[in-house]
């Protein structure tokens, strides 16, 4: 709906954004000149990236390159770390989220997140899933039940837990816990879903299901996923950003990145020659 507005402004990311077709889809996130410091540590350096609606954007790069830092900035989760300083802009749906007048709670209601380590609440499985809907004011038991079923199915864990919905989530295995966290995120039906290596604790079958799910979800949502698994990025994403030492080395549509990277470092990384 804000498409015209979005277009008015020249995207600063355009320089490295060489996807022709991209201009046609609506932009969800526009990051311009983002810098981030942990105290003295310059963790993100002049990031310029646009993310598009109904697409899966993958972020890859070696350990410590700033992937988690960047994705946490997208829902301002980074604020929880003391001593973090940012400059630059991140526009979500055309409003700068780094502006302090932007309410983080509003942002996070729109932008769900799945973390690297599973972090279920020390509550029952059911309570974990309905937590989000409940705080957002949904009290109807029937609707909540429906949400639970739908979300757990969506996260490919329904069959395993449907008989123990009221047991504590900490009794689940690591992989089950992570899928529960995905279900919890799906329960609030966000606009964008951020995923920080969501499948790193999952077995291939669950991973496959999640990957399929991601494909499914992108029809309605926009997904940004950090992954250490290049095959995964190649399989599921429409665009891929390659991070290195806090910089975006290359951002392009996934095919280009994997088949015909622009930058030598990207190529080296992708072919495993690097590091």
């Amino acid at each position: 709906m804000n498409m015209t507005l979005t277009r008015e402004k020249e995207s600063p990311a355009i320089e490295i954004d060489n996807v022709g077709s991209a201009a046609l889809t609506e932009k969800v996130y526009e990051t311009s000149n983002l810098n981030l410091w942990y105290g003295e540590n310059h963790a993100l350096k002049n990031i310029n990236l646009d993310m598009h609606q109904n697409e899966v954007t993958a972020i890859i790069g070696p350990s410590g390159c700033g992937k988690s830092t960047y994705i946490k900035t997208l829902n301002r989760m980074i604020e929880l770390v003391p001593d973090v300083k940012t400059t630059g802009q991140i526009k979500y749906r055309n409003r700068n989220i780094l502006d302090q007048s932007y309410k983080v709670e509003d942002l996070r209601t729109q932008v769900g997140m799945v973390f690297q380590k599973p972090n279920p609440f020390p509550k029952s499985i059911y309570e974990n899933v309905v937590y989000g809907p409940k705080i957002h004011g949904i009290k109807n038991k029937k609707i909540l039940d429906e949400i639970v079923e739908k979300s757990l199915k969506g996260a490919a864990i329904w069959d395993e837990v449907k008989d123990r919905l009221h047991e504590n989530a900490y009794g689940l295995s690591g992989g089950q816990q992570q899928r529960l966290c995905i279900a919890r995120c799906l329960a609030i039906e966000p606009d964008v879903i951020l995923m920080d290596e969501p499948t790193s604790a999952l077995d291939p079958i669950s991973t496959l299901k999640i990957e399929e799910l991601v494909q499914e979800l992108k029809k309605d949502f926009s997904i940004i996923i950090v992954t250490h698994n290049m095959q995964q990025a190649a399989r599921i994403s429409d665009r891929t950003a390659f991070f290195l030492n806090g910089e975006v080395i290359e951002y392009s549509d996934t095919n280009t990145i994997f088949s015909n990277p622009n930058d030598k470092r990207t190529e080296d990384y992708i072919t495993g020659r690097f590091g």
Partner: protein
Amino acid sequence: MKLINKSHVAKKMPARLAVNTICKGLFFLATLVGLLVLAILFYRIFTQGIGSLNGDFLQNFASRKPEEAGIKAALIGSIWLMVVVAPVSLLLGVGTAIYLEEYARKNWITTFIKVNISNLAGVPSIVFGLLGLTVFVRALALDRSILAAGLTMSLLVLPVIIVSAQEAIRAVPRDLREASFGMGATKWQTILKVVLPAAIPGILTGGILALSRAIGETAPLVVVGIPMFIAFLPQTVMDTFTVLPMQIYNWTSRPQEEFQQVAAAGIIVLLILLIFMNSIAVIIRNKFQKRY
């Protein structure tokens, strides 16, 4: 398909944020309450006592003459008391906490010990005084010594230390223990090298509260029979002594207005000692504190 009405959610958001802001304000006010009370207390005590607080006050023994009365015996006595209470109660308290959290099996003895400890925390201090009198002063013939009083006080503050040390030990994440065991560390090594260092902030918090309590208690020492007036300094832990709160209590019950000021000066000394102790613990605590 959509079960969540976004516009509904959005409409509710301002109210939720307002509630959050209001509660934050309330929480902040609650925090201020404590600080405010402290400020009033300090103001009253300082304005009353500062006039009597001088070198002589620290140098002199107690006296019937308010202008000559000093705090020396009580101050030194309180310090001696801490010298006994701090190591005894910390060793016993942390030891017990380790036993309960790390070694104890789930059986009735453990349950009994736990219930017993939380119950001890509620036993009024004066009853500990009766115990100390019977056991330490009489049965063990320690007389009205620093040791007897110190042991009595140690038992009194023990539950506070145990309970907070237990909580602190329990809060150390399990995967840290696993990492240590995985290296072939024995249980005791794991406790000593991993669990205790990680639990130190919590243990110290409990320790501060406990020692603060010990330094301000009067009733059990009265029962144990610690004298209120003494004009000499103890040389060993077997000597008799007096402590600050007893001296202060004594002064506040005097009819002469001047003694009220002397009492206030005594309270200032006690507070300074307290703040000094707390600062040491806080420094240690801040050095160790980490959020997982």
